[in-house]
């Protein structure tokens, strides 16, 4: 999948300030709103949906990565934002570790297959020792873009 084309560089928040789940989700949605990806009303609704989903079970899938996600029909296409925390975020992840990279996914109902493709992609990176290390070492939005491009080229 062309993940590097799916994630806009401006939607990568490389310096998350929050140290817990709720705060970083708010930060990432604030960026999406600033970038004109959604209205304030949509952002509020998406935030509520993301948190409701987290309460059903964490989306911290392990090895430093979380994939908070929500279905939302107010957007036409899948929207993906990436967040990165240097010290890591308390996320109640399945492996008990801190989360350093967050992939936030908003999925219109008709795009469920695209969401599953993103889930496969993110999980494959998380699982792969080499790619996981690259991701954990990324510090800037540019780093992330280059890593996503490299992974595609070597796929």
């Amino acid at each position: 999948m062309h993940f590097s084309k799916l994630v806009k560089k401006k939607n990568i928040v490389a310096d998350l300030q929050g140290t817990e789940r709720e705060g970083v989700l708010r930060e990432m949605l604030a960026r999406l709103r600033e970038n004109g990806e959604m209205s304030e009303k949509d952002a509020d609704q998406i935030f509520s949906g993301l948190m409701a989903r987290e309460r059903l079970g964490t989306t911290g899938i392990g090895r430093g990565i979380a994939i908070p996600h929500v279905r939302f029909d107010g957007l036409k296409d899948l929207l993906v934002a990436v967040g990165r925390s240097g010290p890591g975020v308390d996320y109640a992840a399945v492996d008990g570790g801190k989360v350093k990279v967050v992939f936030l996914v908003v999925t219109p109902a008709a795009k469920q297959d695209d969401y599953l493709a993103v889930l496969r992609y993110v999980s494959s990176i998380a699982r792969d020792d080499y790619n996981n290390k690259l991701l954990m070492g990324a510090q800037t939005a540019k780093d992330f873009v280059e890593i996503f491009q490299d992974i595609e080229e070597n796929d």
Partner: protein
Amino acid sequence: MNDGGVSRELILRNRHGLHVRPSGQFVTVANRFRAEVYVSVEDGEEGNGKSMLDLTARAAAGGARIRIRAVGPDAEEALAALCELVDSGFGED
């Protein structure tokens, strides 16, 4: 294909497939047993059924055919419990 132990093929009945939450439920049940558990989707490569990331990396879609294989002393019980979970639709829809 590996064929040790006991295995069963079944169709994912829940609409949204083996995404994050069902994978978490699957791993939780699988880890209750000593048996090794393997999962493949549509005859693809087997993954570790006790690994969240192995399951989400496959992310089988709703309606997909999956194969669960269990190997070990309590393999029969593990397979039965996991098939029951899948057939229940993971409590969704």
